[in-house]
């Protein structure tokens, strides 16, 4: 089996959803049968499903005053005012970050992701600070130690092994990267070393 690379693409808008969304915006306050009447070939089941997904993600709201059992009376809805200006139906929920057709709108999903990202960033900063303090305290540094300092200060820019040839790329000529963020004492020492070479 050939493995195809999956790229994240923008979801396509369903044409019937687009028409339903347009009708919702035109009618402003509407019921599901009213929307069905404005779209040729639409069904109550299809529109109900779309409205339910919008309601689940808080994009439409139910209007009060509906009494069940009254002939010709249906539950009325309104589009949430912040998304009412959009010409196309929202594809991604602004609360949970999932697609609109997701069955559960869980704000914690988005929150957890953000917290994890922040934790990773915080960890990287901490490591860099520790490395700076360690190497600034050392009286003299050899070129090997300097290379180690570079690797510790910039853990994200790790040298990757070339997958095709199996060789490591040539080390970058110091101080080509990150010169401006080094501590002043280390910068002075490195400056002298750089001039000497």
């Amino acid at each position, binding site marked *: 089996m050939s493995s195809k690379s999956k790229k994240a693409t923008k979801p396509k808008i369903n044409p019937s959803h687009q*028409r339903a969304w*347009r*009708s919702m*915006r*035109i*009618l402003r306050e509407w019921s599901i*049968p*009213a929307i*069905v*009447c*404005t*779209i*040729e070939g639409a069904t*109550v089941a299809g529109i109900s499903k779309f409205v339910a997904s919008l309601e689940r993600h808080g994009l439409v709201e139910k209007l009060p005053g509906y009494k069940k059992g*009254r*002939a*010709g*009376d249906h539950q009325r809805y309104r589009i949430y005012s912040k998304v009412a*200006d959009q*010409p*196309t139906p929202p594809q991604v929920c602004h609360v949970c970050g999932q697609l609109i057709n997701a069955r559960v709108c869980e704000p914690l999903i988005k929150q957890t992701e953000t917290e994890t990202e922040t934790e990773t960033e915080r960890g990287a900063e901490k490591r860099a600070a520790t490395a700076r303090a360690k190497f600034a305290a050392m009286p003299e540094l050899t070129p090997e130690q300097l290379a180690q300092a570079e690797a510790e200060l910039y853990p994200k820019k790790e040298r990757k092994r070339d997958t095709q040839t199996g060789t490591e790329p040539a080390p970058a000529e110091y101080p080509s990267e990150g010169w401006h963020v080094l501590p002043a004492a280390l910068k002075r020492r490195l400056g002298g070393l750089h001039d000497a070479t």
Partner: protein
Amino acid sequence: MKHKTAMTKDLRRFKQSVDDLLNRPTGTEGQGLLWGHPGLGKTTAVAYVCNQYDGIFVRALGCWTVTSMLGDLCRELGGHRMCRRSDMVEYIVGELAKPGCAPRPIFVDEADYCFRKFEMVDALRDIYDLSRCPVIMIGMEDIARQIKTNERVARRITQWVEFEGLDLFDTALVVEECCEVALSDDLLEYVHKETGANIGRVIIGLTRIEKFAKANGLTRITSAEWGGQPLYFDQPTFAGKGKRK
């Protein structure tokens, strides 16, 4: 009840006029006007036709200027409001007159506000002249009278459509299309008379009649069977302050 749109005379005329505007000969003005009393199904008809022709719908506001009108049109076409009017007109025309795309009608609701400033009407004229997409203005019952007094504006409108409500034939059509039980002629006349040509009330009345007929196992219902029951839930009437005891 079946949830369908019945092709009433009003809707048929409106659809025909939009079609005529889309296929108008070169040199003909491309502006139409739709007006009528509230409750006659104007908005539903506009939504139906807008969906059929992939139209663009904007609602005019009392505080609208030419810039805000063009900004709203840009937003409807997937763009953003720009600083200069000419840039926005260029963008709108570019989007509407894309090669290989069918012309899309532009519907402007509450168009009474647009006629307060002729600049807005002129900007709309530029758009339909350059893009060949017609502009249909929708307003209340007085809009036509106001426009008729102004020769400069009236000359540009080539399609005038008034929503007059349902006649007896239309009511019969609605019953045939939407109701799941048959109505006798006398009950049909009763429904038409009681609802005052208002499509919303006709639908509510028919829903009640259908519910009653199904509960009693009837496939065809007459006026005698229905009796004098109310057809729809109207707003309550209150006695004046002086009449209260």
